[in-house]
């Protein structure tokens, strides 16, 4: 059976599905259906991505049916427990790890299954205390001096081996550069499903499957995804979206060392790490971000943004327009094709608020917009908006912040 089909007798030829389809996969060229003289929808399977937008648009007529055919998978029942990937580098556990442990412990409430963590690397025992204090029940550790940081070649192989041996039903990693490189490789090794950059995770009460919800189309739509027949159900979780796990007073979890798993040879060679010099670049960790957009008009005016960043101990961000114009390096770009940030305060200066920019900063605790156009879409998401010329507003703001008035 085709995975998606049109129920001709239900189709009224209304065209809603044609408009909803982002892939131009539907034409009104079928036989007459429910309404006289109206052709029905025909879906081009080669173009269709089964995204479901058309079925959603056709809710009223129920003329588009998507069949989720079952196919071979692993023995679902043989898997249990929730496992997280304990990413670390340069002597620190990644700041996303407490967040995914927090998400795992939330899921634990519905699944009543243990939360475990996979920890691999050289000298990683030092991270066990922090992991256990987050409420991890069991740490599956491979500690070997030959395992380098930044080596997804080796890490992915070891993680896959642990997953095959321990058989958790859920495996979560951070939506970081490393997580989004490592987990796809692991999923391709053990042939299971992986959902990228989830912003919401929950357990379906009837099937107990993991519901993985994520934005797509630059945040225009949200999709909920299931991995029904393959285990573990894998997902990367967007940084700074989930609440970090609350610390447990007396950690009761244990560390299990997996010494029998052989360390594979690597094909990668780590040469050096270069930290970006400016303190203003680490957008992902910053509490305050001051971003500039097209309204800045000239690269030298970014000095104004930097001043405000300095006055707020913030990091400097930018919209795609500013980066594409060559005013500031790409590493500052916030948005769909740049970084996703979630600071306590995000100050958008001269940024109109294209959906692609919003996709990268909508999760901020507080959004402040400074823009001369009172109808700019950025004001729709801003908690506080200042309508005015940023070349006057920012100096005034800096002055008051510095004077403490």
């Amino acid at each position, binding site marked *: 059976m085709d995975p998606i089909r049109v129920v001709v007798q239900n189709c009224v030829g209304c065209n*809603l599905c044609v*408009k909803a389809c*982002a892939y*131009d996969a539907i034409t009104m060229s079928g036989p007459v259906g429910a309404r006289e003289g109206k052709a029905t929808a025909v879906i081009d*399977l*080669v*173009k269709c991505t089964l995204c*479901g*937008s058309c079925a*959603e648009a056709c809710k009223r007529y129920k003329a588009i049916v998507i069949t*989720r055919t079952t*196919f071979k998978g692993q023995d679902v029942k043989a898997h249990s427990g929730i496992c997280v990937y304990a990413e670390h580098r340069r002597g620190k556990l990644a700041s996303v790890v407490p967040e995914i442990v927090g998400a795992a412990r939330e899921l634990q409430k519905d699944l009543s299954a243990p939360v475990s963590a996979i920890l691999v690397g050289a000298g990683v025992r030092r991270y066990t205390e922090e992991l256990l204090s987050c409420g991890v029940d069991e740490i599956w550790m491979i500690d070997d001096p030959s395992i380098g940081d*930044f080596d997804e070649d080796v890490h992915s192989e070891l993680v896959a081996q642990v997953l095959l041996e321990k058989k958790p039903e859920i495996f979560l990693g951070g939506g970081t*550069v*490393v997580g989004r*490189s490592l987990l*796809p*490789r692991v999923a*391709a090794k053990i042939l299971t499903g*992986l959902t*990228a*950059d989830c912003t919401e995770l929950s357990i379906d009460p009837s099937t107990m499957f993991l519901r993985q919800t994520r934005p*797509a*189309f630059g945040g*225009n*739509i949200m999709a*909920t*995804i299931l*991995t029904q027949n393959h285990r573990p159900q894998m997902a990367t979780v967007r940084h700074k979206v989930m609440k970090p796990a609350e610390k447990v007073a007396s950690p009761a979890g244990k560390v299990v060392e997996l010494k029998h798993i052989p360390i594979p040879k690597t094909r*990668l*060679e780590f*040469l*050096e*790490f*270069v930290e*970006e010099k400016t303190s203003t670049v*680490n957008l*992902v*960790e910053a509490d305050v971000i001051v971003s500039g957009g097209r309204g800045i008009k000239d690269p030298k005016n970014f000095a104004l943004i930097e001043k405000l960043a*300095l*006055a*707020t*101990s913030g990091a400097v961000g930018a919209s795609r327009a500013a*980066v594409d114009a060559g005013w500031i*390096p*790409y590493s500052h770009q916030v948005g769909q*094709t740049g*970084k996703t940030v979630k600071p*306590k*305060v995000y*100050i958008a200066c001269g940024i109109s608020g294209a*959906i692609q920019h919003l996709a990268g900063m909508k999760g901020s605790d507080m959004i402040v917009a400074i823009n001369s156009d*009172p109808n700019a879409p950025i004001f*729709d998401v*801003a908690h*506080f908006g*200042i309508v*005015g010329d940023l070349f006057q507003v920012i100096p*005034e703001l800096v002055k*008051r912040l510095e004077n403490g008035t």
Partner: protein
Amino acid sequence: MKIIVCIKQVPDTTNVRINPETNTLVREGVQSIINPFDVYAIEEAVRLKEKHGATVTVITMGPPQAAEALREAISLGADDARLVSDRAFAGADTLATAYALSCAVRHLGGDAKAPAGGVDVILMGRQAIDGDTGQVGPGVAENLDISHVTDIRKIEEIKDGRIVVERLLEEGYARIAARLPVVLTVVKEINTPRLPSLKGKLAAKKAEIPVLKASDIGADPERLGLNGSPTQVMKIFTPPKPGGGKKFTGEPAETVGAFLTELAAAGITIRKR
């Protein structure tokens, strides 16, 4: 050197809007484009060719109309292109897509005994702007059993089967050496793509774009399309519309003051500590 660039034709999401009444995507007038990140991958491949001598083949998995994107890639300097297209690929998620592309790469390399079929470098953008997953690159590498490095901002050198790259990370970058063949995904910082040349445009017009079907690339039907896809979209919905908060209009001296007062009332300080 043999280089393959994997690209994707995507709807230009910068122009996708939501109909406020029906809350659905408005697709009308939205063009299909080469995924923006993939344009940087094409440019980087052409630069490698200019520097080291290489053949650059561009492939995409998609419907017949995706051939347009391949022609555009040729106009940007690629030597030739293949369209990987078959009904059997319908409904593929990232796992099935990565598998199909890896079969195509091996097929195009032509040397069954060499890793990755004898292809040296496989380039693609860090993610596609419609799905935003970034999972296909690492998946292709795993299927070919070669290594991969994501988020490349610079290729420093290629020498004696070894490549040195800079990988963009959250707080800086790492310099990494990999052995060829390798899969690299690139970020925008890596180069500034050129515009199509007249010669390129003519070549694109003339180019034949052969279609590769599932059987041509020796793919296992079990692992293709919906059959080979463990993930399924269960529900699509539009995110709740943001409300918009308090707006201050007037002279900067007033608006800034009013804003700071409100901010303080909300218990938030932005002053440097």
